[in-house]
């Protein structure tokens, strides 16, 4: 087990009016399962000539390990600690079992740092990537994640998603009762920022496709309302305050509409709301529960949960409305909260397996394989990394609710928790622009 401690850096520019500042509770990440079947890579600690507040190579190592596609070598197996090409003896690294090697230095500059790094193919002895990235104290971690993304992309051919953010709900007991906060953090749980703090429940954060806004449901005033909040300014507006349920918002892929659940017509139905005009369009018409809408990647369909067949199952309807088509048949009698993968090939959901609520992934094409990826009993709220390679969800640990990640191949598992609070409702943001 490896423990990485994360530290808070206040991003004051992001603090909205309702914000109480950075949360005291910081997320700690813990690897609970790591199968060493990925690419053996050695990431040598970067040389420094000035004090550097972050372990850049350590961040890159943790990122790559979390994907399941890399098996970083323990530093005790390193034959040396080279920082430049001159110091690399490829034969020694081949003997140590590394196929790729990352070396680098963090140099001081007038405005901060310049991170120079190289990715070397140990087998051929060739340099396959060399880069210099400027950074400062504020974006040093982000820059390390971007370097991890570059390495991931170069070696796997897939886009990296480490330089991304997650939103989630933190619940803490205070002297005045429960406090619900909507939090933002880096994909590894570092740099937490509070977006909203409320004595009433907050749930279902959903990102706009461009990453500039978050929609959520909040019970301020003891009524459910859906809000859309700008991340840069903290300004927000109520977009839906109908009688009954206002919940489960999801941005359309073009960001112009929200799908959401309203019960103003007597029972929970899926609607779309055009944000520019505040016009609703009702999508489902069924006296059963219809909720948890999510757009297909191409924006043409909406997946949702309905119990119209007697138990909750996943359905799909055209985004303009029409006949709904049932998607889950042979995955048991409880399937809810459908979440399409970014490429549209898979659908993650909450599924009940012998009384346990777990995260299942259904292949939408061809053989419709169904894989149950989580292992606990009260798992919920799945969300894909924007490159589709990691699934995050809420689970229970010894201290209560925490977040879990699993690589989509099931090989690598991590937990993110806070010592004095419950974390849940993760929503993985899009690629940073």
């Amino acid at each position, binding site marked *: 087990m490896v423990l990485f401690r994360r530290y808070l850096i206040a991003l004051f520019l992001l603090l909205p009016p*309702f914000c109480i500042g950075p949360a005291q509770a910081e997320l700690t990440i813990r690897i609970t399962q790591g199968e060493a079947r990925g690419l053996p890579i050695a990431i040598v600690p970067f040389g420094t000539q000035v004090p550097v507040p972050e372990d850049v190579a350590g961040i890159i190592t943790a990122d790559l390990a979390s994907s399941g596609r890399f098996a970083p070598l323990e530093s005790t197996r390193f034959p040396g600690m080279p920082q430049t090409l001159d110091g690399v003896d490829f034969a020694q690294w081949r003997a140590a079992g590394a196929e790729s090697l990352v070396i680098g230095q963090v140099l001081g500059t007038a405005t901060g740092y310049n991170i120079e790094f190289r990715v070397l193919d140990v087998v051929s002895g060739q340099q396959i990537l060399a880069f210099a990235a400027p950074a400062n104290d504020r974006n040093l971690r982000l820059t390390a994640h971007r370097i991890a993304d570059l390495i991931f992309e170069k070696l796997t051919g897939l886009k990296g998603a480490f330089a991304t953010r997650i939103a989630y709900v933190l619940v803490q007991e205070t002297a*005045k*009762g*429960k406090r619900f906060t909507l939090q933002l953090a880096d994909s590894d749980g570092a740099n937490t920022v509070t977006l909203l703090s*409320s*004595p*009433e*429940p907050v*749930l*279902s954060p959903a990102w706009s496709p461009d990453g500039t806004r978050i929609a959520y*449901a909040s*019970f*301020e*005033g*003891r*009524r*459910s309302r859906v809000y859309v909040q700008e991340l840069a300014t903290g300004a927000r507006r109520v977009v839906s305050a109908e009688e*009954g*349920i206002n*919940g*489960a918002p999801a941005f359309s892929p073009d960001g112009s509409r929200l799908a959401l*659940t309203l*019960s103003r017509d007597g029972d*929970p139905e899926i609607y779309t709301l055009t944000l520019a005009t505040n016009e609703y369009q009702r999508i489902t018409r069924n006296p059963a*529960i219809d*909720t*948890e809408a999510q757009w297909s990647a191409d924006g043409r369909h909406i997946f949702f*949960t309905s119990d119209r067949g007697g138990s*909750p199952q996943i359905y799909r309807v055209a985004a303009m409305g029409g006949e709904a088509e049932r998607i889950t048949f042979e995955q048991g009698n*409880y399937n*809810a*909260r459908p979440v399409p993968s970014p490429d549209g090939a898979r659908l993650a959901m*909450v599924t*009940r397996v012998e009384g346990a*609520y777990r995260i299942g992934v259904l292949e939408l094409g061809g053989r419709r394989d169904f894989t149950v990826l989580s292992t606990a*009993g*009260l798992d*919920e*709220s799945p969300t894909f990394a924007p490159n589709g390679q990691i699934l995050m969800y809420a689970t*229970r640990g010894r201290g209560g609710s925490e977040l879990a990640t699993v690589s989509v191949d099931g090989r690598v598992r991590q937990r993110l928790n806070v010592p004095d609070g419950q974390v849940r*409702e993760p929503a993985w943001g899009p690629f940073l622009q």
Partner: protein
Amino acid sequence: MMSRMHHLAPIVLLACGLAGCSTSPEKGAAAPIDDRAISSAEMDALDGARTEGVADPSRLQGGALDDPASPLAVRVFYFELDSSEVRADYRPSVEAHAAYLASNGGARVVIEGHADERGSREYNIALGERRALALRRQLVLLGASADQIRTVSYGEERPVETGSDEYSWERNRRAELIYEAPR
């Protein structure tokens, strides 16, 4: 009689605030509903809502609504697993609340619907609403006006028991009837 009853709603609200609102029918097992007493001031700050003070406490003489022996004392209605049917044994209480609302046109209640923690959160919001609406429907059938009753579903977000066991789940599958101060 009518005018005296009319004053009872605010008195009950005060009694709830003072006593921590032990609304559960089973005495002793009642859990204080922690959000109610603590958050009103914070709510005011958040949304600008104002609740006015209530009657002089010296006038709190007791009456139908705060008599623990009255069927009106039942404010929490528990539900079976996967069910939104108001249990038959609550009939006397449902009738009493409906009669109270019918004869006190100014009285207002909020019915909060709740679910246990299992399964998906937004789906549980929908399940909680079904329970709140089932209770509301019965009250209206028995004479209350639909305008007097607002419903809100918290799903699994406001449990009274935090355990992950049958007992806690049973206690959390509930609808709560809360009398509001007139505005």
